[in-house]
């Protein structure tokens, strides 16, 4: 599991872990808790070009549907097949095995720090 304090965040309750030119993307524990049990995840295929701020996927719980926004511009290099097969990973390990996408990107927008994100969700 990635240390949440070392990640960057968006106001859409996603986390971004940058390693070189690849950003790993997931949703936060706060978002997973709000959704409830995730039962279906729809992710873009590898090779898909994504645009920052647009909806690229869906995360469905028993009760509701959450949209996955691309936090960066770039190209999807991998979608997490484990999460597609076992959507409950988003609840059980949102910062680790529950990651959603890896996107190759050349430029990062300004994202929130851990402290800024915690302030956003009132923690």
């Amino acid at each position, binding site marked *: 599991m990635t240390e949440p304090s070392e990640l960057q965040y968006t106001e*859409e309750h*996603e986390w971004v872990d940058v390693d070189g030119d690849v950003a790993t993307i997931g949703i936060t524990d706060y*978002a997973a808790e709000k*959704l409830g049990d995730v039962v279906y995840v729809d992710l873009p295929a590898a090779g898909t070009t994504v645009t920052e701020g647009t909806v690229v996927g869906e995360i469905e719980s028993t*009760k*509701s*549907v959450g949209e996955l926004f691309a936090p960066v511009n770039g190209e999807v290099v991998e979608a997490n097949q484990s999460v597609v097969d076992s959507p409950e990973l988003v609840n059980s390990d949102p910062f680790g095995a529950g990651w959603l996408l890896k996107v190759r990107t050349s430029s990062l927008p300004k994202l929130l720090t851990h402290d800024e994100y915690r302030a956003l969700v009132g923690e």
Partner: protein
Amino acid sequence: MTPEPGTTTPEASAAAVERLSPLDAVHRAAGASFTDFAGWQMPVRYSSDLAEHHAVRTTSGLFDLSHMGEIVLIGPEAAAALDYALAGKLSAIEVGQAKYSLLLAEDGGIIDDLVVYRTGDDRYMVVANASNAGVVADELRSRADGFDTIVSDESDDVALIALQGPDARAVLVETPGFGVDGPGNDADDFDAAIDALKYYRAFPATFEGEPVLVARTGYTGEDGFELYLAPHRAARLWEALRETGGSRVVPCGLASRDTLRLEAGMPLYGNELSRDIRPAQAGLGRVVALAKDGDFVGRAAIEAGQSADAPVLVGLAAEGRRAARAHYDVYDGDGADAAKVGVITSGALSPTLGHPVAMAYVSPEVSEVGRELFLDVRGTRIAASVVKPPFYKRDA
């Protein structure tokens, strides 16, 4: 990611001006997440919607339903007043019996769906949905005018705890403190009374010396009980059932209640039922007792009938894991030129069955069982078959 609106953490909701259950402190101590439901702060889940759902199907689940409304009618003409006020023939039920009924508007639309308990020769308790409790009380008062009966909204003085699931009966009889209301009043009598209690029956019992109405009713498709008692006793009963049941009793929030009742094919007011829906459209024609003597509110409109093309409620089952949800459109094909033939009222990925299920109002010509329809899931058409609810039926 956009989190579900309307769900708040206990911390975030503490300042909200909303009604609280008598079990509120118990739920907060248990770490529940809350939702605003009809002006009440009620638990939406304790930990996991799915775990709570499965608990009710396999062991048992404990629900706080204290937000429901209870309106009591007492008087020699209570039965006659209800026969006039409601769609069913409530004078025909015996003391100790319960009946599902409808409060209709003059135009035949559904104001609320109700469970009515006959608690004495001249005494009934009408249980209304939380969102409609005030309206139901007002309508009953107004409709009982001229009948020799008192109508009293006792919603604030009644808490409701439901214990539902295959282990519910065992847990209830094992829980110390129960007795039958009346002489004797020991635990053996209570066990015998529970064993003799049929579905949709109730009897007056005691818990630690204070009255509790024990009813074999529910909204989950499982065997189970609904326990009506004074609010100040609710926390004690809740804890006693949990202590006795241990891992067989899982506290359940409203999220699992919704998927449970959907699997059981039970309508939810506000989703399947509304002022704009006639009973027959919802498959509830049998609830309207047109054969009963005398007038009742809505009779003329129901007898006049309704346009033959009025939408009707159907069940829909699909494959895969992508669920169509309330307000999604239903089409007669997957092409761009296919006609829209209906709207989903409730839908979810069924936790028990593992595939999507939904209820929808569709035009009658596409409502026959087996008909293939297409559900518009945010731009993607998902094939579904019309099926006859319930989607899930427990083994007898």
